[in-house]
Structure formats: structure tokens, C-alpha cells
């Protein structure tokens, strides 16, 4: 029996180790190694920190890096602000069938490809698009208005794309909040604001953290929305990675960018977990 259990254990462990080793751990180590070398001539490389030096001294690279980070944080904040009241409504105000229907409605766009969602916003916001036509029809504009290709359009797209990943964890945690606790808060003399601050938000914290982490990750790693909706000046860090790898075939610099993005996302996720005293296991698992 012991031997049998041991064989079973090895048989189950092997796929996990192969998957994580060959597709996650070793490739990332390899990427790090590539980013730490410099091409001397054809097929000749030398270890060096040049790539990171370039990435950290070239203003365009550095600016894009921080811009991507700040815009992602901003997108996460806006998503949270928009999603919270809606999630609260679904979890606590709506009842029975209506609750189920509203929750399902939130899930539908999640099943639709991101490309389609972005495409929808392009049709709405472009110069010949619906919003522009609507403004002209209402007399608010006397010529077609271009609403695409700027930061605001990009933000609309980012928030839209990640909305569902905020609503779902929020609804789940808010549903577990007992109505009587809220009632007790009012009985003890609290008003809407203090109940929200001292009862509802602390209770929803796990949902807020996991929602924020996922939304932040998705925004930071997004390629489609910034490329399609953002303008010439709103370069996104993933776009730079793509350009270095595919367009310029400068894998060394691209790998360095990739590693920087990885570090940035890890640091922010780690910071968020630390700040709220939660583990990755609780948040994701």
C-alpha cells in the first residue's frame, strides 16, 4: 500500500512539475538571462547590464513604463468606484430572480472576446461613429468629432474590459454580509456613510483586494485596448515589448522590458497583499 501510494504520488506530481518547470520557471529564468547579455557580433554575446541601462536612461522607455503603471492604477480605481455600488445593488438590494438576472448580465461581456469589446468602442467613438453623430444631431457639435485615440478613450476601454473581474468578487463577498449586521449598525446610531465605512467596506475587503489585483494585472498586461483606442502618444509598455521582439527583433532589450513589467506587477501585487494582510492563496485560490 505504501509503495502504491508512492507511485501514485509520483504519477500525479510529474505533470505538475513538467508544466511549471518547462513552461513557467525555466522560460522566465531564460528570459532573465537573455536580458542580462549584450550582442557583440553575430552569435557572440557577453553578459552585461546594458539593456537595463538603456531602459532606465532612455526617457521614452522610462516614461512609458511609469505611465503604464499609473494609468493601470487609475483604471483599477475607476473600475472599483463604478463597480462597487452596482455590486452592492446586485448583492443586497435586488431579490430573487432579478438578482440572478442582473448577475448573469454582468457575466455576458466576459464571455465575449476582448477584441469584440474594443471593436464596439471603436464603432462608438470614432469620427464617423455613433457618439459623434449623436452630438451633431443634438446640435452640440457642428462637425464630426474624433473621440478615439486619446487617453480618455483608452481609459473607457480599459475600465470596460476589466469591469466584470471587479463585479464578480465584490458581489460574492457582499452576498456573505448578513443584513442584520447592517441593521445593527443603524440601530447603534450609524448613518449611511459610517455604516458603509465601518461595516460594509471592511467586510468587502477580500473582494476589493482580489478584484483590484486582477483588474490591475489585466490593465498592465493589456495590449489590445491601448493599441486600438489609445493615440500615438499613449504608448503602452506591452506595445514596446511587442515592438522590440517582433518588429525590431531586439530580443535582449525586449526581454529586459518583459522582466521589468513582471517585477512591476509582482511588486504592486505583493504590496497590495501586504497592505491588506492577505495571501495570494486566499485571494486567487
Amino acid at each position, binding site marked *: 500500500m505504501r509503495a502504491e501510494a508512492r507511485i501514485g504520488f509520483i504519477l500525479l506530481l510529474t505533470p505538475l512539475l513538467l508544466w511549471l518547470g518547462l513552461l*513557467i520557471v525555466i522560460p522566465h529564468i531564460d528570459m532573465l538571462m537573455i536580458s542580462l547579455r549584450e550582442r557583440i557580433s553575430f552569435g557572440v554575446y557577453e553578459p552585461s547590464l546594458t539593456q537595463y541601462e538603456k531602459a532606465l536612461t532612455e526617457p521614452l522607455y522610462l516614461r512609458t513604463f511609469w505611465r503604464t503603471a499609473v494609468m493601470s492604477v487609475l483604471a483599477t480605481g475607476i473600475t472599483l468606484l463604478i463597480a462597487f455600488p452596482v455590486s452592492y445593488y446586485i448583492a443586497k438590494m435586488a431579490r430573487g430572480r432579478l438578482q440572478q438576472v442582473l448577475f448573469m448580465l454582468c457575466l455576458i461581456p466576459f464571455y465575449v472576446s476582448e477584441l469584440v469589446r474594443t471593436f464596439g468602442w471603436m464603432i462608438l467613438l470614432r469620427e464617423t461613429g455613433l457618439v459623434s453623430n449623436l452630438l451633431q444631431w443634438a446640435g452640440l457639435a457642428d462637425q464630426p468629432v474624433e473621440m478615439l485615440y486619446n487617453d480618455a478613450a483608452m481609459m473607457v476601454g480599459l475600465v470596460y474590459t476589466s469591469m466584470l473581474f471587479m463585479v464578480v468578487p465584490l458581489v460574492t463577498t457582499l452576498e456573505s454580509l448578513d443584513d442584520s449586521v447592517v441593521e445593527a449598525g443603524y440601530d447603534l446610531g450609524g448613518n449611511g456613510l459610517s455604516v458603509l465605512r465601518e461595516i*460594509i467596506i471592511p467586510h468587502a475587503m477580500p473582494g476589493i483586494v482580489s478584484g483590484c489585483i486582477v483588474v490591475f494585472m489585466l490593465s498592465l498586461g493589456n495590449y489590445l485596448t491601448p493599441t486600438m483606442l489609445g493615440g500615438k502618444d499613449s504608448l503602452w509598455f506591452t506595445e514596446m515589448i511587442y515592438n522590440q521582439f517582433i518588429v525590431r527583433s531586439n530580443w535582449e532589450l525586449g526581454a529586459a522590458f518583459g522582466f521589468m*513589467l513582471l517585477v512591476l506587477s509582482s511588486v504592486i501585487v505583493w504590496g497590495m497583499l501586504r497592505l491588506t494582510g492577505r495571501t495570494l492563496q486566499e485571494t486567487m485560490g
Partner: protein
Amino acid sequence: MIPTIPRSRSFRILYGSYVLLFFLYLALPLTVVAVFAFNDSQFPSLPWEGFTWNWFFGEDRPQIGVFHERGILRAVGTSAFVAACVSVLSVSVGTTNAFLFNRYEFRGKGALYVLMLLPLVIPGIVLGISILVFSSTLANGIWNAAEVDIQALRPGLLLVILGQFSFITTIATLVITARLQKFDRTLEEAALNLGATRLTAVRTITIPFLMPAMIGALVVAFLMSFENFNTTLMLVGSDAPLTIAMFDRLKEGSTPLLNAVSLLLMLGSSLLALVVILFQRR
């Protein structure tokens, strides 16, 4: 702010309209995409030129429909093939992972579990380039050692499948583990007492119990693979899956053909999602 606490009428109306506005915002882009699939014009924008089915069934240029557009049909086939491979692979590994984490205690289990979750917090494009870099290191190494060129390690469908598999497996593992945790182990022990071997017990008792979660994970994996963009973008070779093919066309300027494809995608994925919901309810 719960129904039992009285609220002023104006607050309720304000709150209700906010929620309504939110759902309009959710529905707007998708509705627009769907509606313009039927516009009898070269561009998916106003003015409305009348209703047409041409973007689905049209046989002649310029209004060639989805069902006669070879490039798009081929891309759909590629996507379906990739998604089928990815979902079968990731559900298989997801199931073995679930059993491993549920049934065994071993040193480093916690660390392995956290490592298993990591693919969810690595940006898709970084997953893509790391696999691209590693497979090419491997291919170059093999070339230098034995002068054999392994095409499969160059950008192409195998890499796309592996790239998507690398993070979809985490999701499959989570879905299946959640169900396995609810399993009553005494049922398995009863089977063992009745003379079944361990493997028979798992096959006849545990696996049927896990089936809804496995099928659910299979469909979710299929959908995620079908719509994946970031990881695929870095690993794609000459056979482009649908999202990449559509992206290339979108860059060149869009026609309502793309709306028609999008509408079909929406219908297809809603149908699959519905199947999962019905199946899980049973």
C-alpha cells in the same frame, strides 16, 4: 442601505437609475457591434444604409459574407483546433493537480501551490515572450549540437497551444479542486471495503462526481483559449487563430464583415456558457 432600512424616494430613484445606466454601458458596445453586422454599407458606422444579410451569406465582393470568406473560416478552424488541444490538456493536468493537492501531504506543498497560482498574475504577453525565448534557445541548442532544425519549436501552433495551456491549466486546477474538496471520502472507502481496487474506486466513484467540474473547466478553457490574444500574439506563426486574424484586419480598416464574425462569436460563446449553466444545475 438594505431594503429593510427605509430610504427616501429620490435616493432610490437615483440609485436605480445609476444601476440602469451601468447596464446600458455594459450592453452598448456589444449591441452596436451586433447591429452594424446588418448595415448595407462598406463601413460599420452611420449612416444606416438598410438591412442586409450579405455580411453573413454574401457571395460577391465587396460584400463577401463570413461563410464565403476563406481566410476567416480557416482562422476559425485554427482557433477551434488550438482550443480543443488546450482544453483537453489543461483539464487533464488540472485533474491530476487537484488530486495531488487534495490527497497528498508532502514537503513544499504550500510553495508548489503558490507557484501553481502564479501564471494568473503574470501578464499574458510576458508568458508569451518567455516561452518564445526558451523554445528558441532550445531550438538553437539542438541545432548547434546536432544540426537538426526542429520547426515545432519555432513560432507556430504548438507554441500557441503550450502558451495558452501554461495559464489556463491554473484555472482548470482551481475549478476541479473546488469540487474535489466537497467529495465525501467515505464513499471511496466504502468501495474499497467492497473489494474494489483504489483505481477502480476513483474511476467509478470519484471521477463521475468530478464530471460536472471537469466539463465546466473544459468549456471555460475552450472559451478562454478561443478568445486569448496576448499570449497568442507573441507565439503565432503563419497559421493565425481568429483573434489574431481579426486584429490584422482591424488594423487595415474594418468592414461589417468583422461585425458579423463578432456577432457569431457572441452567439457561440453565449450558447456554450448556457450549456455549462444548464449542465451544472442538473
